């Protein structure tokens, strides 16, 4: 497997406060990595560093072997909100991204492509709808469709379902998994930020648990639960329960008396 993302000894400070210290993560092509942690642990900052929206103070991030020097279209990003431009319709939002990614194609092809991509998240009818006319869940589906539309090898998602109700959230998790497990087999690498243990286990192939003050890795878990997973089926599996218990222990452990536990496996 190719090394898709290599993060080495990454540190980042904001206004004199150390936000992340000595973070090492390696992800292979097709990995689904969940960054799990309490608020203030720097998980969103880590994602922004990978996206190229912030610059590290120490360490390096390599994507496909090349160092990140800024934002790029090789990474599709979905934020919790503000992903879509509110003055563009859902379709125009996709067309705008497609124009950026494929400037030599004709506009007609972009429109056709945008329609098809909206179809993949079952929003064919929303092409001419403004984001304000869509529900929160639909908006995030459009944002996900846009991230997939430009076909980047790496997807970065910053609590994309954080503002949604539980039922919508469950539906969108299924949507996302369906999109990620493409029939062609060219699965994308995903970095997904969440503070929800169940969401992390349901989605991830690897869960990286972060702790706060300063943000650092507390543990890395391989989620060896067979796919396709469903919310109902995994919740009864003993493996799921063991993983969940271990992660919850790490999350609720007081970080100051835990010291530097390193990265247990």
């Amino acid at each position, binding site marked *: 497997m190719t090394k898709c993302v290599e993060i080495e000894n990454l540190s980042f400070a904001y206004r004199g406060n150390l936000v992340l210290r000595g973070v090492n993560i390696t992800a292979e092509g097709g990995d689904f990595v969940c960054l799990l942690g309490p608020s203030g642990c720097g998980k969103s900052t880590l994602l*922004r560093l990978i996206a190229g*929206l912030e610059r590290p103070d120490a360490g390096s991030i390599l994507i496909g072997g090349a160092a990140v020097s800024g*934002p790029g279209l090789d990474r599709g990003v979905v934020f919790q909100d*503000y*992903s879509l431009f*509110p003055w563009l319709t859902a379709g125009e939002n996709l067309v705008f*991204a497609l124009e950026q990614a494929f400037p030599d194609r004709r506009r007609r092809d972009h429109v056709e492509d945008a329609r098809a991509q909206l179809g993949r998240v079952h929003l064919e009818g929303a092409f001419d709808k403004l984001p304000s*006319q869509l529900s929160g869940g639909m908006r995030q589906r459009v944002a996900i469709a846009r991230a997939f539309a430009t076909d980047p090898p790496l997807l970065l998602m910053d609590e994309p379902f954080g503002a949604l109700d539980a*039922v919508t959230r469950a539906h969108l998790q299924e949507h996302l998994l369906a999109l990620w497990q493409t029939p062609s087999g060219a699965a994308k690498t995903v970095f997904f930020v969440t503070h929800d243990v169940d969401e992390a286990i349901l989605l991830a192939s690897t869960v990286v648990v972060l702790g706060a003050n300063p943000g650092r890795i507390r543990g890395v878990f391989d989620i060896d639960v067979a796919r396709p997973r469903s919310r109902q089926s995994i919740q009864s599996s003993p493996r799921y329960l063991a993983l969940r218990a271990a992660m919850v222990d790490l999350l609720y452990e007081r970080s100051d008396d835990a010291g530097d536990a390193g990265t247990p496996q």
Partner: protein
Amino acid sequence: MSSTQIRAGGAHPGTRPAALGPGRGAPAGLHWSQTLPAGAILAGLLLASAWPGSEEGFPLYLVLFAVGVGVVALARWRLAGSDVARQSVCDVAAILYAILLAWQLATAHFAALDPMLFPPPELTLRLFVKELPDLLYCLRSSLILLVSGFGAALALSLPLGLYVGWHTRLHHAVSPFTKILGTIPPVVFIPYIVHVLPSFKSASIVVIFIGAFWPIFINTVAGVFNVPKGLIDSGRVLNLSTRKMLLRVVLPAALPSICTGASLALGFSFLLLTAAEVIGANSGIGWYVHYFSDFADYHRVVVGIIFIGIVVVAITLATERLERHLLRWRS
């Protein structure tokens, strides 16, 4: 289980408006109580018109105007989408008729007001129609000044505001100057600029330009500065060039604030236009009012004031409509 609950809950709001409708006690359609005040006052107005008043004969223009208002009100009433809108159409017509009736009674019938200063409605309407070609000519020369000054201000302050707002260092460097220069009331420039510049026309365009420039500039800079960071990030991850970022993300995101500045600037422009015209023009709507008041022709002054009112209302309505169109994406 929970998903069926949500679906059942989702169906409920759809049934509510129908249940609420009759509860308001206002069935759809023209209810007699809605039109009663307007109808009664219109009847009074027509009666007063038919009654032999002071010097004039039958006030044909007044009756035609009242009927015209009624026709427009009926058309608007038919187009109105809600009971509230229908009611307000009737109320507005009633108030307008009441003003006309009071005006007619006070001037033509009881001669309570000085006829030199307060012409009766019939005379005013007749004079308005007679003066309309002259007024439109004046409007034309006023609009040339307004459009030149305001247009130049918009064309310069908008790109400048975008650029300054986007570059934080420049923004901080410039803001003390905008705070001082932007707060000087532009009216005080008028006498100075009239002396500095060769013609009245160029002077009034520059005055309008100054008056319109700062509100647009300041609001554009503030709008750009306050664009949600998340939107900028969404643009950055799409690898937008600075040009595309400014034109396709920052500009639309700052548009609400820009519109606020532009409508403020338009109001200033109108004020400065008429002020400048009063000082030194030989045409224009402000000049018209000023000129005839010098001759103590207050009937024409009243006609001019009414005309300016109509023009301002028309421009305001048009810009409001434009703003609603530009910002239709806001929920």
